[in-house]
């Protein structure tokens, strides 16, 4: 296990380097200079101060020098200062926003697995029955519905027509004057719609995946053996089949991280939720280069960590992986 972990950790190093190179390239290969934006906004900036700005951000140096400096600062978790008027360090901004997005996505992820596993199992055990057909319809709709449109529909229905739920932000006005329980309930109401949308977004894919995985396992010889031994269908499905069908879902957990974070741009900007997605959206709109680069690197590294955790969990659950056998070439 220790060997496996070490190998996995070593493999992350080239990926980390690659992530920084791509992030750097995305920003610097595009035409236009970061400083131009700041300068264009302010007509009083002289050519001299423009040079000073360029020097400050090291834009007068060759690209590889800029890259090396940037990475050496990254290692010390220094992401530079935001270009926005408040000029705060990027890391402080991200630290403030990250928990909101991570918490929403964690809750959504738990709901998603909690719903997708029973849906997938039921569809697989009642294959080609009406239940299976209805879940298939639901799954297809889930793939085809644009998330932002779903946000609009829910806002219209529950916010505008029925007036049951607030449609923007995390808190009501003046929430601080109320007790703790009131505040929690208030936040819950604000988060109900965004969390539902985030859950729905990947529920379809996961339940389809669970169905496929379950169908495959149910066709294996050891399931026939278990049935032949006279075990009840319940034991066969939940003790013998489900365990093995769940294994691949662990990997999916790691792979779903970038999709979840990417999707947060949409619901966070529609529901005005101050999370990473909204921060990133505002950052690109304002051409806040240090912020954009910082968010890109951090989300990619989060994905890497998510994959690592999923692989480790998989190895812990499946001895074939950690002993290096049964590995696909």
């Amino acid at each position, binding site marked *: 296990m220790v060997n496996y972990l070490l190998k996995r950790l070593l493999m992350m190093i080239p990926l980390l380097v690659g992530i920084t190179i791509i992030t750097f390239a995305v920003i610097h290969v595009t035409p236009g200079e970061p400083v131009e934006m700041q300068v264009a906004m302010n007509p009083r900036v002289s050519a001299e101060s423009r040079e000073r700005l360029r020097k400050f951000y090291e834009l007068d140096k060759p690209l590889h020098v800029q890259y090396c400096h940037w990475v050496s600062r990254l290692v010390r978790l220094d992401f530079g200062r935001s270009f926005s008027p408040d000029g705060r360090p990027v890391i402080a901004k991200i630290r403030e926003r990250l928990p909101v997005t991570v918490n929403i996505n964690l809750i959504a992820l738990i709901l998603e697995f909690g719903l997708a596993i029973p849906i997938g199992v039921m569809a697989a055990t009642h294959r080609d029955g009406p239940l299976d057909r209805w879940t298939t319809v639901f799954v297809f709709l889930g793939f*085809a519905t644009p998330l932002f449109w779903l946000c609009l529909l829910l806002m219209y229905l529950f916010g505008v027509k029925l007036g049951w739920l607030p449609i923007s932000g995390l808190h009501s006005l003046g929430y601080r004057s109320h007790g703790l329980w009131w505040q929690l309930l208030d936040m819950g109401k604000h988060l109900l719609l965004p969390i539902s949308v985030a859950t729905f977004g990947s529920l379809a894919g996961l339940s389809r995946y669970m169905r496929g995985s379950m169908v495959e396992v149910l066709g294996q010889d050891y399931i026939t053996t278990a049935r032949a031994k006279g075990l009840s269908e319940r034991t066969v499905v939940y003790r013998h089949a489900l365990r093995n069908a769940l294994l691949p879902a662990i990997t999916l957990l790691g792979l779903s991280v970038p999709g979840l974070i990417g999707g947060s741009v949409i619901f966070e900007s529609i529901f005005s939720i101050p999370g990473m997605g909204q921060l990133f959206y505002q950052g690109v709109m304002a051409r806040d280069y240090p912020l954009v680069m910082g968010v890109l690197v951090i989300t990619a590294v989060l994905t890497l960590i998510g994959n690592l955790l999923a692989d480790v969990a998989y190895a812990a659950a499946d001895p074939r992986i950690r002993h290096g056998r049964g590995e696909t070439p």
Partner: protein
Amino acid sequence: MSRSQGTLRELVWRRYRGNRFAVAGALVVLAMFLLAILAPVITPYGPNSLDAYHVLLPPSPAHWFGTDEVGRDVFTRMVYGARISLTVGFVAIGIATLIGTVVGLVSGYYGGWVDSLLMRFVDIMFCFPTFFLILAVITLREPSILNIMLIIGLTGWMGVARLVRAEVLSIRERDYVTAARAIGCSDLRIIFRHIMPNALGPVLVYATLGVSAAILTESSLSFLGIGVPPPTPSWGNILTSGKEFLEFAWWLFLFPGLAITVTSLSYYLVGEGLRDALDPRLNR
């Protein structure tokens, strides 16, 4: 080959035809294309003709899907928007499939360090939330229809690459490839004449499903105001004003959203139908 069984193509077609959902999907896709091509014939209005006297009107016989905040006919804008949305979906996935296929073929056929290098690159690209990458590149460059297609394509090829590589790895070992090598075929000829045609089925399925995803991505971008630049209509940017007038004008957000969902669903059904028709063992 016996007459009753027919060629492989006939067999696939017969299986596809047997799937009602897949046929319905194909018909809807076809209808959307017809609407898009025949746009000027279908509607008397122009996509950008303003009408200050008929602002935010609900659906009526004159304006089937109502009018927007500057008096433009929503149905007309949707029909013209179909041109953009369908083109973007198609071209973007064309680019992604092309890059992915080439990378997958090279990676799977040559193996060794070329394979490791390319697959690590795929791993790295998979680490970024695709939507973040697209957002960053598109706002730093110019949001234009061409750029959107390019960027969706450049960030969406990794899945195809992995798929093609896996196919090539298994095809490479078959006897007819060994035979081709034995009679002295060049690498290029083996890759493109003998391996690629046999790997195309899954790629076709993947690409069809990809069109559905690309249409969703384009509409999300346009909705956020960084996709197809107004006044050119796209289903996504009509929805932008739909959000703005959410409280007064349900027709502004209902119809374009339905159009996106139905189109994307249809492509999805076609893709699934193709998958079942090409390989009935899958997913059964």
